[in-house]
């Protein structure tokens, strides 16, 4: 079953928003308004938009990584609050405490990035553990990269969730790199979804550059988990079309690889599909213009917000 055109247009707009925000962040970082290490998710938007489309954010909980801007925006975090967070401003979603790589937005179902690789997976299992007692029907999503599958915490989380039949979906954003090192130097079996069977849970692989395919595969996992069927692992094949962090020269990429990744990126692909389904070029352009305006307005709002107040730095440590 394929999704209808309005649904796909929604995916298109949300992916464009993520890309537009990331491009603006790159500009602000290069201009020096933002500092520090920033990990963009450009090229991987279909994973976030597709996966979140299958969730009920009034009760589900997402636990992404430091590469989490896309997850946040897909969950509905306003771009101005994200910009302001990375700029270290009062209007930031955490008032500047989290920054690019460690902010949280629980009011949007986004329960926090994590800058420790793999650390979110057991916490997501815990959110699912609570669901197994509170009758909420909550499903937890643990999102992490291909490299994180080599971290002990992730294995403990998967086994823990499997043995207790917890409602967790482990979403692997397989972009074929752990920072600067390719997956072939990390693991012998590149079919990461096969690890799921070792824990007695279903695992599958999906085209992670197709938001519709991700959404449908995710629906299957989410429904199963919500119905008491236990966890599953969904491996989304994607690629970042930017460096691991802003400023990464990507010398480690073989010639031509980046061009191929750009040619396969999800936004252009979806635009082609929508055009083939009869959507007029004007309609797509109108969406592009609307998103660009929204990004610019959000960026201006964030830049107008004052820096976080150092006098508040010690607040909120204890109850």
């Amino acid at each position, binding site marked *: 079953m394929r999704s209808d055109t309005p649904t796909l247009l929604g995916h298109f707009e949300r992916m464009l928003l993520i890309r537009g925000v990331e491009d603006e962040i790159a500009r602000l970082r290069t201009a020096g308004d933002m500092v520090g290490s920033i990990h963009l998710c450009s090229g991987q938007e279909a994973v976030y938009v597709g996966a979140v489309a299958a969730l009920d954010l009034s009760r589900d909980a997402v636990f992404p990584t430091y590469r989490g801007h896309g997850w946040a925006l897909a969950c509905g975090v306003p771009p101005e609050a994200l910009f302001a967070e990375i700029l270290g401003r009062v209007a930031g979603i955490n008032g500047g405490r989290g920054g690019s790589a*460690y902010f949280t937005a629980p009011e949007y179902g986004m329960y926090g990035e994590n800058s420790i690789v793999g650390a979110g997976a057991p916490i997501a299992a815990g959110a699912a553990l609570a669901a197994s007692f509170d009758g909420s029907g909550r499903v937890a999503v643990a999102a992490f990269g291909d*490299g994180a599958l080599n971290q002990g915490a992730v294995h403990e989380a998967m086994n823990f969730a499997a043995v207790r039949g917890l409602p967790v979906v482990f979403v692997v954003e397989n972009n074929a790199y752990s920072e600067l090192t390719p997956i072939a130097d990390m693991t012998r079996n590149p079919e990461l979804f096969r690890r799921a069977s070792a824990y007695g849970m279903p695992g599958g692989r999906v085209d992670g550059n197709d938001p519709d395919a991700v959404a449908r595969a995710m629906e299957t996992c989410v429904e199963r988990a919500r119905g008491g069927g236990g966890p599953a692992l969904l491996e989304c094949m994607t690629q970042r079309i930017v460096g691991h962090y802003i400023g990464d020269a990507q010398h480690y990429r073989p010639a031509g690889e980046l061009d191929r990744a750009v040619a396969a990126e999800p936004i252009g692909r979806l635009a082609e599909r929508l055009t083939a389904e009869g959507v007029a070029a004007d309609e797509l352009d109108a969406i592009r213009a609307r998103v660009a305006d929204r990004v610019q307005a959000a960026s201006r709002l964030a830049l107008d917000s004052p820096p976080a107040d150092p006098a508040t730095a010690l607040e909120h440590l204890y109850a």
Partner: protein
Amino acid sequence: MPEITLSTETKRLSYAEAVNHALRRALYERPETLLFGEDVAKPGGVFGVTKGLHREFGDRVFDTPISESAILGGAIGAAMFGRRPIAEIMWIDFSLVALDQLVNQAPNVRYVSRGAVTAPITVRTQAGNGPGACAQHSQNLEAFFAHVPGLRVGMPSTAQDAYDMLLSAVWCDDPVIVIENRTLYHGAKSDVRLGGEVEPIGGARVRRGGSDVTVVTWGAVQNLVLEAAEELAAEGIEAEVLDLRWLNPLDLAAVRDAVGRTRRLAVVHEAHTFGGFGAEVVGLVAESGADLLAPPLRIGAAPARIPSALSLVPGILPTREKIADGLRRLVRGEKAGDAGALR
């Protein structure tokens, strides 16, 4: 392979280049050394510190999966069987996912076997806050490791020490953690003496002479201490700055000597004041019966997680202003202690 001579030569190097020279020398002179960690080999390290070493030394320098327990446990096991691994943990914060290997395993190997087996590993890592870094990439955990008997802990703050202390660590037959600082890696170059004898671990260094107060410090924050000392010198206050370099073994004699001369003690570290290693230094000096003119002063981070926003950080970490202010009060006999340490 270009010859590495044992004869001394001096080169202008950054801190990162000094580490690279030490690693290269260790790999060259000690065929039992291995160098591994995340992104260290083909990419040459996320900070470029290990550049060129994989090309030069082949399989003895390799990239690992993101598996800190395997990195550290693997280092320990290999060391028990004659290798001399130099393992990199990219950020000290990540050592926490494998703390078992550093606390329950490495220091017990020699002790329980009564020396029949040893684990001479060197763990290179880097710590501390940098612009925009989050709470999981900003910590100073040296006191954690210094608390564990059997682990050696050093924190080089100059390019020369980055070279010397790393070699001392590799040559040492104990498990050693060398905590570098990424904000120092690509700073100004300085003259670094290369070659020569590798000194045993340990030993503090006086970085600046002064007669009014002794400031014991270590790590990158030392540069703020030296700036604060210059500021005070203009006001007629002369601070002696003692770089501890090694927390284990601790050069208590140097601390006692210095405090005996100035009769005032301050300790400055970037780590949290509460439960920090500064408390150990102050405690040891107090126990030694030092006759001080004023209560000792500790300056460190206030008790909070470390926020990302640049404007929030000075509310928590030591700054040049806070250091200068504290030392000024200490010397003038005003109340200088950081009451914020207890909360």
